[in-house]
């Protein structure tokens, strides 16, 4: 290997600083969440304890954290499943031009760039003026889809742009029906990217604040609950909650990574000779 130029070390140092910038604050509150009972929101540490975590679990004085967590989790799951299914169908459809495809494409781009609070306001007004009740599972769910579907669809566009169509032609030549082609050829090939879409769908929903602000109704989702806490809670219990949600996110990433490795391994076991040629 040729020796690294000096610019490499400069850039590597810059990258290191960037990582520090990204992680620094999160690590700080992780440490501060272990403050003693008398500790405040800043350093110095006033003893160490798990007092604030206990506070979070026991008192429930700060609101309905566990209820909101359950709702956020359920909603994230609903949004995730819908995003995967609808994005795949949309991605397949967009491979051929259909009447209105250009218009729909621009709607999707609009959906991606429109300020979240406008969706929240608009959906909230629509529901209230037509006499329907806003609820996280109806209006909240729909509002979040306007954010997760464009992401899912853009990923599907990228996937299908790189998709080798000759696999499908081969399947067709062997007499597969269109559904069989999708089920046994297309889906297994795009499978790993679907896990990516699912992960995107879940986390975008799980963390979405602005789009659920006016559309969640009387039962808060977790980001709304956290937002409420920032305005009226001034103890490290807030940091404890932050640390817990971070740990939960790590767990979710872990689960998805495990899924990816498992599917990859199962595929390797199935022993495909694709791409190995005849020689």
């Amino acid at each position, binding site marked *: 290997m040729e020796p690294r130029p000096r610019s490499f070390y400069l850039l590597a140092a810059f990258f290191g600083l*960037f990582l520090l910038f990204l992680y620094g604050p999160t690590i700080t509150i992780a440490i501060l969440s272990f403050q003693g009972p008398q500790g405040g929101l800043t*350093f110095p540490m006033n003893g160490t304890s798990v007092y604030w975590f206990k506070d979070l679990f026991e008192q429930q004085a700060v609101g309905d954290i566990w209820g909101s967590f359950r709702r956020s989790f359920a909603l994230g799951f609903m949004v995730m499943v819908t995003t995967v299914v609808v994005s795949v169908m*949309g991605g397949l459809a967009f491979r051929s031009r259909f009447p209105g495809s250009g218009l729909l494409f621009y709607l999707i781009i609009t959906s991606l760039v429109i*300020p979240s609070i406008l969706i929240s306001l608009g959906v909230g*007004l629509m529901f209230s003026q037509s006499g329907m009740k806003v609820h996280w599972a109806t209006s909240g769910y729909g509002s979040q889809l306007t954010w997760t579907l464009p992401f899912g669809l853009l990923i599907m566009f990228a996937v299908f742009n790189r998709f080798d169509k000759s696999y499908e032609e081969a399947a067709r030549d062997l007499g597969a029906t269109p559904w069989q082609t999708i089920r046994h050829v297309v889906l297994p090939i795009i499978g790993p990217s679907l896990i990516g879409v699912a992960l995107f769908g879940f986390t975008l929903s799980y963390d979405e604040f602005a789009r659920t602000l006016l559309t969640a109704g009387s039962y808060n989702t977790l980001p709304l609950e956290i937002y409420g806490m920032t305005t009226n809670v001034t103890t490290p219990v807030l940091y404890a909650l932050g640390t817990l949600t971070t740990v939960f996110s790590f767990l979710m990433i872990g689960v998805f990574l495990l899924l990816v490795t498992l599917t990859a391994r199962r595929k390797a076991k199935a022993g495909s000779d694709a791409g190995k040629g005849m020689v």
Partner: protein
Amino acid sequence: MPKSLKSLLMVSPLAAVMLVFLVLPIVMIAIVSFWRATEFSIIPAFSFENYEFLFGSPVTYKVFLNTFKYALITWAFTLAIGFTVAYFLAFHVRSQNMQIVLFLLCTIPFWTSNIIRMISWIPFLGRNGIANSALLSMGVIDQPVEWLLFSDFAVILAFVHLYTLFMVVPIFNTMMRIDRSLIEAARDAGASGPQILWNVIVPLTKPGIMIGTIFVVTLVMGDFITVRIMSGSQSANVGRLISNDIALLQYPSAAATAVILLITVLMVIGILLRFVDIRKEL
């Protein structure tokens, strides 16, 4: 079944969601922006009152100017940092596995709640925060600096912290697709490092830069929560104007502001899209 009909059927759930939760709400906002409100209810009556008030108030112009200021400064920082990081990952990290690992490292904080990441700046920037004590002990300052937290500085810092990744991803993506032989050719033709960077890499990375710009600018322009938390309610942008009206149940007035914000954002996007064909870049 004809092919286009099948496509239409498959795309119908997507179209339905867009219609019900994007188009209709925007129409609703546009309608309500012409309504009137009392303290207790909103009245369906056609009037230009909200817009007259909006355009007649100096606050509006100040707040819009502030919104552009946030967007521009945040854009400059996220672009500079994002480009450098993407450049390092794409051109200086040699093994693909290492690239993936470093890239994942950058994305992990992204999975933590935005609000939590915002408030994690408080112990950093506060009067007795880490930044102040570090500066004090180094002797740079002899009194805690007050403007670190609850200021425009804090707002922009949080924006850069939250949104730089939206710049890194598309730029990195386009950089990875640059044919390496072009760079070799430039080097063979005698171009220096900076010349290659400026005349080869930057022009070829433009689509990624544009997509990242669209993300950052729209996220910052529509934001209301970062500005509220990080400025300690001392600064305002258009998003906050809207959310304040909502909090006061002044929906027609919020809707009018929202219409203007929407038009502004779409105009900015329209200008940016002239530089790049998104469909070709996917």
